């Protein structure tokens, strides 16, 4: 396959040569993403940096990292993101494998259940958790009816209540890419493994999981990224006392009206994400289809 692609590709010197109409067209096509990148990424970043530096001084990052509220929120956000990503990786991989191995009807049901999470608005799903967790809410009443508790679990506006809600919201983002990789799994490989005497556990460990590894890593980084900047669920479930980075930035911006501080915090979050990614990228490639690091 790869070989054919190389043969079919037009000779290098033709591409982009002056006078070649396709070269001009390609250039025009490039202008759109380039303009979008400048308009939506570069300019806002420049404005953000300018705002942070002009209001908080050039050392804004040091100030932000010395702010107890920010450090608390950062610690909470990182813990949340790591645990949510790990939980999604375990549950999501099992879910994706179930989608390809379960009997047809069950697999279809599982797929519909998964996709329904995408079809129902994020806000509605999160409010569902609020109704479940609030004092005297559905969970409290259910457990009381069963005689398991007396008063209330007091889950709303705590950090621990954010975990199930965030896993619920983020799981589809993990399952879908891994599911796609499962579909590309060659059944002959599984048969080869079995015929060579491997038990199902060994096939999973030595054949299936290595094959899914790039997809699992890519999906994990996607979920981790989303969890870091997650806003709606921490806001509604965690409340104002359990601030994450995203809700803290929102508070600075829309309640404290401190644009400079919000800009500084946003940039520091961006830097932290870049640092994390450059470290992770040393060990595993985060771009699907490319195996291994440098």
């Amino acid at each position, binding site marked *: 396959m790869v070989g054919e692609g190389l043969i079919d590709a037009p000779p290098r010197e033709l591409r982009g040569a002056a006078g070649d109409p396709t070269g001009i067209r390609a250039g025009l096509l490039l202008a759109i993403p380039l303009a979008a990148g400048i308009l939506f990424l570069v300019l806002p970043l420049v404005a953000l940096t300018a705002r942070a530096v002009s209001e908080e001084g050039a050392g804004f990052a040091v100030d932000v990292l010395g702010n107890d509220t920010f450090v608390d929120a950062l610690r909470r956000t990182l813990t949340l993101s790591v645990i949510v990503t790990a939980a999604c990786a375990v549950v999501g991989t099992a879910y994706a494998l179930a989608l390809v191995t379960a009997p047809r009807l069950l697999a279809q049901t599982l797929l519909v259940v998964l996709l329904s999470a995408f079809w129902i608005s994020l806000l509605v799903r999160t409010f569902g958790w609020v109704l479940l967790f609030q*004092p005297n809410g559905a969970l409290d009443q259910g457990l009381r009816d069963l005689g398991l508790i007396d008063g209330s679990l007091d889950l709303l506006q705590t950090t621990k209540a954010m975990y199930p809600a965030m896993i619920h919201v983020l799981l589809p983002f993990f399952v879908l890419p891994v599911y796609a990789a499962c579909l590309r799994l060659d059944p002959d490989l599984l048969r080869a493994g079995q015929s060579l005497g491997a038990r199902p556990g060994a096939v999973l460990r030595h054949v299936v999981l290595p094959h899914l590894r790039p997809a699992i890593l890519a999906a994990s980084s996607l979920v981790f990224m989303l969890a870091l900047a997650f806003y709606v669920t921490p806001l509604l479930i965690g409340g*104002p006392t359990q601030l994450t980075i995203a809700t803290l930035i929102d508070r600075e911006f829309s309640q404290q009206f401190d*644009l400079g501080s919000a800009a500084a915090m946003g940039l520091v979050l961006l830097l932290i994400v870049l640092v994390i990614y450059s470290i992770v990228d040393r060990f595993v490639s985060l771009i699907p289809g490319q195996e291994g690091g440098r």
Partner: protein
Amino acid sequence: MDHRDQSGTSMARRGPAAWLRLMFGVLVCALVFAACGGDDSDSTGGGGEEEAASQNGEITSDQVIFADYGGTTRTARTQAFLAPFSQETDVRAVSADADPAKFQLFVENERADWDLIDLDSWDVVRFRDQGALEELPADVTRADLVPEEFQAVASGGYNASVGMGFSSDEDAAPQTWADFFDTEKFPGKRALPNFAYFQAEAALLADGVACEDLYPMDFDRAFAKLDEIRDDVLFYDSFGQGVQYLAQGSVSQVLIPHGRIAVLKDQGLPMEFNWNDAFFQWTAAAVPKFAPHSDAAFALVDFMSQPEQQAQFARLTKYGPMNSAALDLLDDATKEQLPNAHLDTACEVDNEGLAKDYDAYSKRFTEWLAKD
């Protein structure tokens, strides 16, 4: 670091959906436009300031934009003020989400997006002192219950008392702010707003400070008192959510404007409001500097200050009129539900005092919220 807190806390707060709009809308617009020079000057059309108020009763603008905090007051405002005003004048009156962050930018950019904003009495002081409010022309009707010193910029609003709403299912009714802070005698959780809104004042009264000695506030004392109930507090971000917590039995008491309780009690829900030491405040329909349709805005303030309109708004929301003539148009049952009838037991807010304290108050409050 300059904490210019502008937290708007008018009678109805925006819900989470509005927060999202705010996040995306303002962030993207403010930053992109700031980056691009933001030079697309006023394109909303209509009469400029120079045309405003120059001619008597003649409105040249074709629309007027009223910024508020959504919720029940927006619905009632549309019914009692905006819709009849549009019918009478042919000026389209529309609601927008008030956002104090944006209000601040109006002065900076010398360009306003709204023509009117629903301001709490202490915010009237703050924004007036910043020079962000337009003076009302002499021919605009003044609401006589607005204190004299604010009548230059404030009319057409309503009054409200912020106090204790509680579930009437409980055996004993709480009487004082001390009862609100006593979770032994009055079990159950408490709901508080997640923005600075009379929490510190309530704590000080509960701790024995007299209403007239509240400002400048002793924050250490207030927040030490609030620490006592912190583990029993659910925070709400809109008044609607606050009464919802009460209605669903998640909390037994809530700090909230009386109107929210009165309207639901009328619908048969088991809740009561305690008028003792409730914080009496008023609001104004204020015109920001650089309002694009200020001529229509002044006409609308005038319309909103008329007794019949003021009475209609009071019937719908149970918030009190600021034009005393409106009281004569209301029946006794309605009047009994208004703050005007409970001034003898109220704690009247010292607006100048609160305005001075407000930035520090809001900063302390958000710090207290975030501390684990």
